Every structure is written in structure tokens, then in C-alpha cells.
């Protein structure tokens, strides 16, 4: 059980959902994250960039099976996993107190 610690970076709705999906699924393609969030490439990219700059996710480009374009795979780092878990613990604490 992680120590509850609210995280302003992760708490933004889109970033919270991104972290949640990555925590559950492990590694997800950029396009799949974008489709699940229902946002544009630019918006999704912006949020992933913020998370990457904070060391919470990694963006890995690999040759893809579609049209020869590279595909970006996203996954949580160990630090991101810990920060997300702590943030969820904090949210559960808050929700319990509400």
C-alpha cells in the first residue's frame, strides 16, 4: 500500500486517465490512448509530454505494422507507477473523508 501523496501533475483529468490506463494495461500504443480519451493527437501528445518531462512515462518509437510508420508505445516508469499509486491512495483518502 503506497503512502498517500497528492500529485498535481497526475491529477489533471486527462493525465490521470492516461496514468490509470497505463497502470492497468502496462504498455499501450499512442493511438489507442488517444482513442480511449477521445481527444486529438495534439492534445494527447501534450499531456504525454508533460508526464514524460516529469519522468512518469516513457515514449518508445518502434517500427509499426501499418504503412511503415513508426508506432509510439507508452508505458509508466517505476517512478510514475509509484507516483500514481500514491496519488490514488490520496484520492481514496479524500473521497473517504468527503
Amino acid at each position: 500500500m503506497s503512502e498517500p501523496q497528492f500529485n498535481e501533475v497526475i491529477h489533471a483529468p486527462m493525465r490521470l486517465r492516461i496514468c490509470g490506463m497505463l497502470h492497468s494495461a502496462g504498455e499501450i500504443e499512442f493511438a489507442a490512448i488517444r482513442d480511449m480519451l477521445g481527444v486529438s493527437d495534439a492534445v494527447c501528445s501534450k499531456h504525454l509530454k508533460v508526464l514524460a518531462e516529469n519522468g512518469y512515462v516513457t515514449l518508445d518509437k518502434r517500427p509499426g505494422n501499418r504503412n511503415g510508420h513508426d508506432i509510439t508505445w507508452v508505458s509508466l516508469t517505476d517512478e510514475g507507477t509509484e507516483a500514481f499509486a500514491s496519488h490514488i491512495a490520496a484520492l481514496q483518502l479524500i473521497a473517504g473523508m468527503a
Partner: protein
Amino acid sequence: MNRSTRPNPTAAAPQAASPSRLSAADALSFLTADRETVARKFATPLWFNIVIAIATSIVILFMWATRNNAFDVLGANDAYFIIAYIALLVAMCGAIGVLSHAVIKSGFRASALPPTRKGWAYVIAAFATYIVASSVVMIVPMPGWAGVLIAVVSGAVTLLFAQLTNRETHDYIMAGGSMTEFQLDSGGRRRYGANGELWTMARFRALPDAERREASRLVVAPWWLYPCQSVCAMAVIACIANFAQMVVRQEWTLSIDVLFLLVCIIGMTVSMVRWIRNSNLDLRMKPTTRVCWALYIGMCATCIIPVYLAGYTLGRMARHPEVPMAELAVGGAVFVVLFSVLGWVYDRKQRDAIAAGA
């Protein structure tokens, strides 16, 4: 990534939360909805589970039919049986191929092991059901209706356990569990292991020429890997065949052979897995040149040999419960030599192509 710009996470949030922020409960409900979507990605579809269950029933029916010489009544011979067996394998592989393609297109790494003990218990129970049912129909003489009943029941039980495994994985994810460490080809855990980042084609291509030529040697597997893989495959066939002969003819001295083969299989598997993990190579790397593709397809084609030998052994042993050692030895030797030589050449061609910047 630049960590110096990271803002300090604030603790004791309630006082810091502004009215425009998502409430904690809303945030958690968003996560729950997303978990449901993720959980669906990790569940094998019902159609797939039904295909596997039906295939399981048909295989058991085949076994009953060969045990009771039903194919003789139809005027068929071993060739028909082998063709039917291979056709069934192709159909099952086709279903798995369609499912794998759908999983890859979904953008998730959804091939995963069961995340809980209960899930493992369901998977093992499904396998055990198949093994027990097939053993019973092979060992115990029984009328047609009994064989059909056992086949149908085992298929239904397989379907049930598959659905239960899906439910277990679903519940695990909904409870907030992470599938990262259970993924079969997890990029997460291996990629940031002690040996650093995974060696992907993109990583090779990103290197300067001299470094790339040096690093390209990493794709060449040790000389023993391909013989080990092919010998292991043949050992599995031989082990199952010996076990069947041991049980049917009650030749319990064969238990020594079975145990020896099992130990060899486990040892070889552990060695191969250990090397593959430590090599940190991206196993999804595709062949780079036409020659590499031809060699790769050739390696895949040689895998038909053990499939044929397995079917042949099954058919032969259904009539005469004695392991066809000569056929297995000769066929196995051909497979090991072909697979190993093609594998060795493939690695070197791939290395040369990467070094040349292909």
C-alpha cells in the same frame, strides 16, 4: 527527459484543491470506467473460447475414434487421420492468428498470464480436464455415445474455465491491479532492467556506423540455441509418446524415460529463457532483407516436421501403443539440422544487414 522542471507534488490536497478541480470521487469514477475498457482488452472473446472448446471436443472425439478403429469403418486410413489432425491444428492456429491480429490492432499488449492464483487454477484445471478426458478415451474402451459425452463435457468445461479466467482477470484489473508484470512480451519490465533498454531495430539504426557494426553482433544467438529449441520440441513429443505407452501397456519402467525427458525439457527451457531474457533483444524484430525473410520463412516451414511427427505418432500409437522411435529419431534429426542451420545463417545475415545499415 528533463526532471528539473518537475513541480513538487503537493501533499494534504483537500485544502489545496480549487473549486474547478475534479473531485476525488469523480476522478476515481473516471478511472473505474477506463479500467472496464482495459479489462475488455485482456479478455479472450467468447467466439474464440467457443472455437477452442469445440476444437478440444473434436480432438477428444478423434482420439476415441482412433482408439476404437472408427476410421476403419469409414474406410479411412492413417493418411486421412493425419490430414484431419493437421486441418484441425491449422483451424486452431488460424483462430489464434485472428485473435492475435485483433489484439495487435487494438494497441494493447494484451497477451498475458493469469494475474491471480485463482486464474492460474482455472487455466491448469482446463488443461487437466483435457488431459484426463483424452487419457480416459484412449485407455478405457467405451461405446460411441460415451466418447461423445466425454468430448462434449470436456469442451463445455474448457469453455467454462476460459470464461472464469477472463472474469478473474477482469476483477483483478477492476480492483486496480496492473497487468504489466504478467504480459507475455512485456516491454515494461524487461526494457528497464539491469541491462538497460531493449535492443530494437530502431535502436540499432539510431547508432553511428561503427557502433552499429559492433552492436549488430548481439543478434547472433549462441550456437546451441537453435539446436536446443528444436531438440526440446522433439523431446516434448517423445515424452508424451512414452508416457502414453507407459500408461496403455503398463510398462512402468518407461517412467525413467519419461522423467529423463522431462528433466531435459525443463533444463533446456530454462537455459533458453534465461539467455533470451539476458540478451535484451526485441523478439519482435522482423527480418531486414529478402534473404533474411526467405530464411525466416524456411525456419517456420521446418516447424511442420514436428507437427507432422506428432500427428503421425498419435495415429500410429492409437493402433499400436508403441513409440515409433525410428521415425521420430530420423524425422527429429532432419528437423534439428534444418532448423539449426537455417537459424544460424539467418542470424548472420541479419547481423550483416544491420551492420550495413539496412
